[in-house]
């Protein structure tokens, strides 16, 4: 099989979308890795849903015994305090989200449609699974960036005509960064912007349900 981007490389490419001084929320999985692959010279403040803004690096497992339970992120992982960090209550935290104050949310996805519909909170029926804060992030962040694998474990496209899994939000995604491509989505449909080294647009299209527009040069992904 041809090499695809590693999760770390996907995260690094997604992180290139961030600018110095941005306030950003990172979802579980690949998105969380973005914190470790920021472009050189930029500082980003990370937001955790329960009310932390601008926290420091995660505590490595070898040091968990020295951590502090009141300093955990939205995924319950320990972080170190950082100068300039601020706490707020969860109401104020979601006011930030819903009120479009976060510069970006980088989230994972189960499925994304070409129009930018997102399904990312359950693999099963709607009644199980945890919604968490994803519905609020999806409608609230100024930009919603999806960082994910291009296809499922079983090789099925995750970029689809219409989402089959329960939706998180309609028409909310701006950009998909996968291990094969960078794709802009939205009301005018998906547009292929970048592809993984060694891959052709036709090969990416074959693993993508909706037809990708290819107006404009398709570049190779860099990270």
């Amino acid at each position, binding site marked *: 099989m041809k090499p695809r981007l590693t999760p770390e490389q996907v995260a690094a490419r997604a992180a290139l979308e961030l600018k110095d001084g941005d306030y950003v929320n990172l979802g579980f999985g690949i998105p969380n890795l973005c914190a470790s692959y920021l472009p050189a010279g930029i500082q980003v403040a990370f937001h955790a849903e329960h009310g932390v803004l601008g926290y420091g690096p995660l505590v490595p497992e070898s040091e968990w015994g020295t951590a502090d339970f009141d300093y955990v992120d939205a995924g319950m992982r320990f972080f170190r305090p950082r100068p300039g960090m601020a706490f707020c209550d969860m109401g104020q935290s979601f006011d930030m989200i*819903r009120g479009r104050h976060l510069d970006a949310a980088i989230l994972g996805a189960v499925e994304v449609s070409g129009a930018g*519909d997102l399904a990312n909170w359950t693999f099963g029926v709607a009644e199980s699974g945890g919604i968490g804060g994803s*519905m609020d992030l*999806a409608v609230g962040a100024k930009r919603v960036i999806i960082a994910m694998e291009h296809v499922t474990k079983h090789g099925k496209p995750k970029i689809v005509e219409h989402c089959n899994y329960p939706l998180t939000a309609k028409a909310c995604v701006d950009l998909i960064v996968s291990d094969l491509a960078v794709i802009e989505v939205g009301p005018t449909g998906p547009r292929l912007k970048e592809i993984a080294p060694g891959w052709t647009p036709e090969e990416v299209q074959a693993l993508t349900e909706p037809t990708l527009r290819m107006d404009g040069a398709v570049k190779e992904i860099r990270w």
Partner: protein
Amino acid sequence: MKTRIYTSFEETIEDFPDGASLMVFCWGVSGTPQNLLHALKQKAVKDLTLITHNVVPASVGKSVLWDVVTPFMLADQVKKLVTAWPGMSYLGMESPMERRIREGKTELELVSHGILVERIRAGGAGIGGFYSPAGIGTVVERGKEKRVLDDGREYLLEKPLTADFGFIRAHRADKLGNLVYRGGGRGCNPVMATACRTVIAEVDEIVEVGELDAETIITPGIYVNRLVQVPERGLGSARHRRELLSRFPTQGQKS
């Protein structure tokens, strides 16, 4: 109304009846009123309406901390659950709460974190309802009024939430019930404190009036009916937290 100071968790919840509604925050070990939850479990109060963000056990990495008391441990006592995270199906496991939901013993109202906290805030702030942009086109819009407002976007009408009791975990309190929190343990505690008829706060330390800086008080005493200090060896005490952390590696820097 005057804030009353208690020394026993049992006494603090003596009038908590079967069928009452309870709001409680939990972010793992952080922000969780473990002693009050433990007392409620001991009291075996039945048919609770439980309003909480997550119903998962506390954990560090893949280690579950079974000796930390969270709403997860109350599953058998819950008749109705309002939450954004009912269990651990994301791990492919069925939790006791999810099993009760599947068996129809507990009714589930699934909401997102953001809608949940704003509904609680509305309940505490006397707002009759509000229009939320979250949830359009999803399962949470079921049964709700949908409406296009002035900006051309669709919104759902969400209704306020209140409860009979609120269990609050704060860091320090003065004897008037003014509260300050610590780190992410603040969470939804200050919002829940506004929306419950009887608000009971457990805190690391109760100090004299005047010892908290007026500029830094997060929950004013007006919201706090009962106050109780976590004992030195109590659940969630500094000592208990150190004991929990001692199970994990400590090489490298000390925090």
